[in-house]
C-alpha cells in the first residue's frame, strides 16, 4: 500500500498541559477520472481567463480584486492585503477541548480525514491511541489548516490516530425543516413486520470494496485502447433506439411467462 511520503502539516496536539508532537498526512483522495479541455482542431490545452462582463476584455491578475455583494450589483471591494491581514494564522496546534463517545458524532458532520503520525517522540502518541481504542472515545477540538479554522475530531482508526475536520453546524441543513416529514403516518404492524423481515433477509457486512465506479473502468479501458493506437468507434448510447425493442421484449416476456 502506498502512503504519502511528506506530511502537509506538522505541529502539536494539545490536551490541557499534555503535548503530543504530530505530523499530518493527507488520507482522502479523489481517484475519479479527470480530463483536460483541449482545442478540438489542434489538441492544444485550453485555459481559463477572467473576462470583464462589460467589454469582454481579458483582465490580468494584478487588476483583479475581491468583492462582496451587499445588494444586487452593489459590492464592497477588498484589496488582497486587507483580507490577508485578518486571516487566521496557523499556530501549529491541534487543541482538544474535550472527549466524547466516537459514535455520538454523526458522520454527517465529517468533512475530510487526515492521518496523524508521531513526530519523533512516540510514547505520548501510543498512549493516546491506546486510550482512544480502549475507551471508544474521540477528542473534539480545533485545527487551522492553511488559513481556515475547522472544528475537528481526533480518533482511532485501524491502529492510527486520525484527525477528521468537521462541518460547522450552519453548513449542515436540519431536515426537520421539510414539511413532508410532518405528514408521515405511523406504519401498520403487518407492513412493519414485512419490512423488518426484508431487512433481516438482506442484512450483511458492510464492505466498501463491493462498489466500483463502472464509468471510470470503461474510461480506463478506452484510454488503454487509444494508447495502443486502436481506433475507438464511438457508439451512441442505445437507450433511445432500444426503447422500441423494450416494448417488444415486455410483450414477449409476458407471453413466455404464460407458457
Amino acid at each position, binding site marked *: 500500500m502506498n502512503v504519502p511520503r511528506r506530511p502537509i502539516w506538522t505541529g502539536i496536539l494539545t490536551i490541557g498541559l499534555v503535548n503530543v508532537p504530530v505530523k499530518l498526512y493527507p488520507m482522502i483522495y479523489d481517484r475519479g477520472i479527470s480530463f483536460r479541455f483541449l482545442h478540438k482542431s489542434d489538441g492544444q490545452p485550453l485555459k481559463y481567463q477572467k473576462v470583464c462582463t462589460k467589454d469582454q476584455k481579458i483582465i490580468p491578475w494584478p487588476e483583479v480584486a475581491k468583492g462582496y455583494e451587499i445588494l444586487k450589483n452593489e459590492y464592497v471591494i477588498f484589496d488582497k492585503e486587507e483580507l490577508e491581514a485578518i486571516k487566521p494564522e496557523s499556530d501549529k496546534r491541534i487543541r482538544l477541548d474535550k472527549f466524547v463517545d466516537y459514535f455520538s458524532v454523526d458522520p454527517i458532520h465529517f468533512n475530510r480525514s487526515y492521518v496523524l503520525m508521531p513526530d519523533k517522540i512516540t510514547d505520548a502518541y501510543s498512549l493516546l491511541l491506546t486510550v482512544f481504542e480502549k475507551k471508544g472515545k474521540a477528542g473534539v477540538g480545533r485545527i487551522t489548516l492553511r488559513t481556515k479554522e475547522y472544528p475537528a475530531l481526533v480518533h482511532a482508526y485501524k491502529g492510527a490516530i486520525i484527525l477528521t475536520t468537521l462541518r460547522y453546524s450552519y453548513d449542515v441543513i436540519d431536515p426537520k425543516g421539510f414539511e413532508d416529514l410532518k405528514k408521515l*403516518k405511523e*406504519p*401498520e404492524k403487518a*407492513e412493519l413486520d*414485512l*419490512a423488518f423481515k*426484508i431487512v433481516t433477509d438482506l442484512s450483511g457486512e458492510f464492505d466498501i470494496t463491493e462498489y466500483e465506479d463502472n464509468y471510470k473502468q470503461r474510461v480506463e479501458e478506452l484510454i488503454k485502447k487509444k494508447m495502443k493506437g486502436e481506433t475507438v468507434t464511438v*457508439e451512441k448510447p*442505445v437507450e433511445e*433506439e*432500444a426503447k*422500441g*425493442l*423494450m416494448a*417488444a*421484449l*415486455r*410483450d*414477449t*416476456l409476458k*407471453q*413466455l411467462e404464460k*407458457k
Partner: protein
Amino acid sequence: MTTAIVYGDNAKMSKKLTKVEFTNLKKIIFPDLKTTKSQIIEFYITVAPKMLAFLSDRLAVLKRFPDGIDEEGFYEKDAPQGTPSWVKTKKIRSETAKRDVNYVLCNDLDTLIWLANLATIEIHIPFSKADSLEKPDMMLFDVDPEPPATYKDAATVALLLKRKLDEIGLECYVKTSGKKGLHVVIPIVQEHSFKETRKFVHKIGRQLAEEKELVVSELAEAKKPGKVFVDYLQNSHGRTMVSPYSLRAVPEATVSTPLEWAEVEKGIKPTDFNIFSVVKRDKDPWKKIFENKQRLMV
C-alpha cells in the same frame, strides 16, 4: 395505506429486460427495404414465443451478415469469440473437420436476441436434438421448383404430397422455405435412423414422380428446367433446414413461415410472408407439431 417496497430481483428485472447489450442498432441489414438491425432484433423478439420450440436443444447453424445482405455473409457453426458465459453451447466432434465444433444451443429468448444482435439473419436447424443426434424427430420433404417452374408448381406438388401422406395415415405440416420452395415436415418418434427417414422420403418422392410429369425424385434430375424436385437428401446426420420463423437473406426479407394447408390450397406467394407481415400473423399452424410425433412403417 399501501406501501411500495421494491424488493430483490424484481427491482433488477424491471430495469434490465435482457442480458444482451445492443450494438449498432442503426446498421442497415436489408438495403432494399432499409431495414435496420434494430428491426431484425425486434422481429426475433416478436416471433420468439413461436420459434424457440424449434431451436431448443438443437445445434444451431447461423448465417450472419454483419455488413448487410448485399455483402458476403458467412455460415457459422462454432460459437463466436466473445460468446457470453450464459449462452449454452455443446461441443461435437466433427469427423470431416477433424476437430471439436462448439455449437450454440438457442434455448432461450436472451440467446435468440444475442444471435440477432450479431446480425444472424438465418438460423438453420438439424432434424435431431443435441442429446440424440442419430435419431431424428422430424422428416423433411424439400419441395424445390426449378425455373421456369414457380412457387405455384411447388404448391401443386406439396398438395399432391399431402394427399399421398394422408392416404397412408401420416399427418404432415407445411412451411414456406422463404425462397421459392415449400418444406413439408412430419414429426416422428425418435426411434428411426436417418437412413430410414431418407429412404422413406425418397420412396414417396419416387411414387409422386411416377404419377406426375412435373415431379422429379432423383438428385441427377434436380436441375431439370420446369420440374419440381422432392429432395430427400437433407434427411441426414449433420444436415439442416432453415428454422420455422427464420428470416432469409434475400432482398425481400422473407420468413420461412408455417402455413395452414388451406392457405396453400387458396394459393400463397412466398414474398407475402416477410419481416413486416409475419409479426402481425396470429396463426401458428405448427404450434402442436411436437405433440404429434408419428411412427413410420418401414
